[in-house]
């Protein structure tokens, strides 16, 4: 299998390189045949990569330990389902994965590219294929997953036990796909710049692929947090680790982009700004990949010692400098069709939202590189820890949530004071009422109060929109409320899908605020039969069962959870000890409710049968994990293709009626 895999890898590399050169040459020499053959080469490269991927999968399944990568990341005891995880557990496989994802996305994006973009498409193909060429060259030359050992080991080293968790099936691949996915909207932007088509032709493709990257990154980040929460046994989910930041920053960039691109889609404004944003997002994605391949800031996520850092640094430098130069070259062409009418308009709200998102991204970037800067200026290296991020980014995020409530309610072009008051009054009342109720219940942490108030503000705004839209449909057409509501959402998917995504962000906010401000933690050592009290809960430790399981020893501790004398649940917390790695992996017992999580993790198993537990009560974190599916549903609705119709022109400075959109069709 290794020969077939290696061969397809090299073929894919040749095809990608040809496609890059062929697209540009064909475009410049006005040879449609050449352009077309370059495009076919792109599709063929995708096929070759699928073959390479399949070869590696088969190598894993057939336990082909002659292949160094297979021997390093699996063993005979590994269940087949973990092949998926083992595939990207190391540099070599993850690079192959990234290349495959990029080639598939490229093929679909180019195939589905809108007709009006056709002129610039060869350049977009070239940018996509140049990126693919880079990844394939690195994979083939420096980190080839099909390299063979000089001998055939009887068994492999096994899979890193930390990766054998459900979350690991999705977190790394979603993040890697999201990071590389930003290449697609970036390539459309670059294509239109290179072709001198600096209008709005690229906007639809840019928006769709921007949102796809966005949802991949967002779910990757959430799943990573969930994984950290359930298995690392720290009780937390986000650590401002340099590599977490490296994925968070491009997410912020692409979030800004998918908002701002709406303004260009609807009003032909922000043309230059959108090009800048997608470049920033792409640059941050490159930075993220550089950090992941071993940047100069080590972290738990580093892939281990490798020489790839230099290559990715070079890629980062080129990936920032060249687009910047192209942007400067085409700068005179980037004129918006219209100017900002008023600071009280949805456009302006989007602009402020963009600036806030970028501010958070740059604060985070600064925190990440600050240790390096401090080393330049003095002998001591000063690291930036959690308080810095919390203090600086916290207020910025609150401001962002406030805008999330205001933005969608404020009309395009120019808002009248009277109409604004009318639309903003109900959500404002909702927010203030929440603050008042919580304060009267004895909640006195100002920041948390403000955050809950804003969350209520956003939620009431969205509910109000839904209610008004549904009611007007119900009145207008006599549909019953349920039908009216569904049709309302389906009639303007980008808008109502966006609302659902906003709701999921509110849910994430609840989780963050709940755990940041109201979490309780206790560390106790209990003998079987002993009990302890944490918060409202009384916990009785019944005992531990120790089971040898092939590559590990499993310790399962059973704990009964009581509240007010009633037995709520009997939970089992697990600690697996892996002798060959000399490491333990814990799985916390989590009793999850929308109000709070009771989180029990066995941090040590003592020889005398006693167990050290870390016990946490984490309020509201349930909402954070539920937000993931909600967010995906929202994104899918927003992305779902709608019947093609002429772009919706923005009418005069009058607010849209809620409900069915005045469509131009």
């Amino acid at each position: 299998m290794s020969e077939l895999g290696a061969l397809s890898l090299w073929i894919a590399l040749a095809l990608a390189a040809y496609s890059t050169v062929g697209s540009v040459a064909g475009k410049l020499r006005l040879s449609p045949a050449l352009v077309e053959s370059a495009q076919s080469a792109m599709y063929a490269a995708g096929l070759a990569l699928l073959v390479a991927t399949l070869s590696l999968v088969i190598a894993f399944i057939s336990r082909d330990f002659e292949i160094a990568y297979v021997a390093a990341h699996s063993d005979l005891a590994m269940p087949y389902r973990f092949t998926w995880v083992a595939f990207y557990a190391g540099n070599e496989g993850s690079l192959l994965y990234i290349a495959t994802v990029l080639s598939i996305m490229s093929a679909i994006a180019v195939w589905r590219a809108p007709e009006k973009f056709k002129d610039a498409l060869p350049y977009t193909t070239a940018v996509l294929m140049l990126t693919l060429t880079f990844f394939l060259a690195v994979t083939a030359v420096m980190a080839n997953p099909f390299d063979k050992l000089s001998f055939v080991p009887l068994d492999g080293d096994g899979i890193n036990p930390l990766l054998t968790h459900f979350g690991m099936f999705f977190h790394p691949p979603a993040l890697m796909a999201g990071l590389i996915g930003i290449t697609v909207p970036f390539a459309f932007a670059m294509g239109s710049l290179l072709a001198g088509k600096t209008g709005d032709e690229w906007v639809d493709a840019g928006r769709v692929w921007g949102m796809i990257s966005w949802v991949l990154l967002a779910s990757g980040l959430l799943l990573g947090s969930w994984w950290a929460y359930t298995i690392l046994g720290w009780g937390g989910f986000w650590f401002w680790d340099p590599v977490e930041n490296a994925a968070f920053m491009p997410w912020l960039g692409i979030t800004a982009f998918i908002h701002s691109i709406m303004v260009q889609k609807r009003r032909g404004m922000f043309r230059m700004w959108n090009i800048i944003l997608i470049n920033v997002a792409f640059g941050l994605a490159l930075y993220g990949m550089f950090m992941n391949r071993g940047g100069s800031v080590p972290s738990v996520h580093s892939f281990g010692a490798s020489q790839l850092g230099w290559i990715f640094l070079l890629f980062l430098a080129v990936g920032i400098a060249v687009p910047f130069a192209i942007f400067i070259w085409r700068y005179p062409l980037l004129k918006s069709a219209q100017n900002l009418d008023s600071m009280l308009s949805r456009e302006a709200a989007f602009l402020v939202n963009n600036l806030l998102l970028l501010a958070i991204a740059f604060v985070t970037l600064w925190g990440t590189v600050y240790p390096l800067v401090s080393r330049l200026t003095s002998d001591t290296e000063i690291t930036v820890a959690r308080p810095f991020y919390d203090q600086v980014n916290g207020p910025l995020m609150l401001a962002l949530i406030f805008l999330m409530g205001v933005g969608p309610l404020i009309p395009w072009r120019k808002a009248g004071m009277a109409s604004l008051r009318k639309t903003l009054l109900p959500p404002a009342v909702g927010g203030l009422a929440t603050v008042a109720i919580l304060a009267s219940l004895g909640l006195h942490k100002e920041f948390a109060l403000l955050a809950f108030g804003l969350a209520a503000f956003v939620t009431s705004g969205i509910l109000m929109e839904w209610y008004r839209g549904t009611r007007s449909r119900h009145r207008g057409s006599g549909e019953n409320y349920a039908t009216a509501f569904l049709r309302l959402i389906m009639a303007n998917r980008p808008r109502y899908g966006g609302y659902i995504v906003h709701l999921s962000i509110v849910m994430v906010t609840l989780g963050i605020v709940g755990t940041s401000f109201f979490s309780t933690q206790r560390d106790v050592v209990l003998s079987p039969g002993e009990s302890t009290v944490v918060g409202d809960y009384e916990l009785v430790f019944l005992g531990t069962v120790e089971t040898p399981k092939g590559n590990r020893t499993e310790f399962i501790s059973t704990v009964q959870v009581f509240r007010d004398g009633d037995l709520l649940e009997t939970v089992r917390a697990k600690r697996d000890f892996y002798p060959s790695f000399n490491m333990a992996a814990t799985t916390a017992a989590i009793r999850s409710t929308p109000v709070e999580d009771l989180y029990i993790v066995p941090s040590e198993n003592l020889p005398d049968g006693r167990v050290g537990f870390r016990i946490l009560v984490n309020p509201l974190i349930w909402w954070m994990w539920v937000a993931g599916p909600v967010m995906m549903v929202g994104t899918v609705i927003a992305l779902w293709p709608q019947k093609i119709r002429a772009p919706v022109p923005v009418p005069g400075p009058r607010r849209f009626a809620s409900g069915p959109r005045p469509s131009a069709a």
Partner: protein
Amino acid sequence: MTKRSWIVLGGGVPLAALIALLTWASISTGGNPGGLAVNSDLVESRFEAGPAMDFELDLIGGGTLKLSDLRGKVVMVDFWAAWCPPCRAEAPALARVYEEFQGQPVEFVGVDIWDNIGDAEIFLLQEGQSYPNGFDASGVVAIDYGVRGIPEKYFIGPDGSLLKKLSGPLTETVLRDTINELLGR
């Protein structure tokens, strides 16, 4: 200046600076740009004194070690890896100084990070370290301590407070003086 030149300056300079910084950082990590920072120069770091974060390690060669069990001793926690050249360079010095302070309230704890456990075992056999060494496979201890490169050492007082951090390879003299200073001599 035109607006365009302003954009060139305003965008280009910070971007160039960022790239330069990352390049410099990669170079200064001593031929290991791809990976993890190797501290090749001795640097003393300051931080606000506070209690050292407790941790428990599974020791290489069996057993476990809990930092808080070492209360009453001056503890040096050393983060290292087998592939890191300066770590290997200073290993004999660490072994000798550790022998010197036998019988005094001083303990060394090695924490192997970003490493393969097999390589670490060989390293310890070769260097003959007699103090406890553990493997921080998930990197939790390293994150708790904010380790940015190796070798990196944290000094903890008898009362359990974190006093000092030294990055980069140590000489015998520096290590001896530091321990004596913390012992109050």
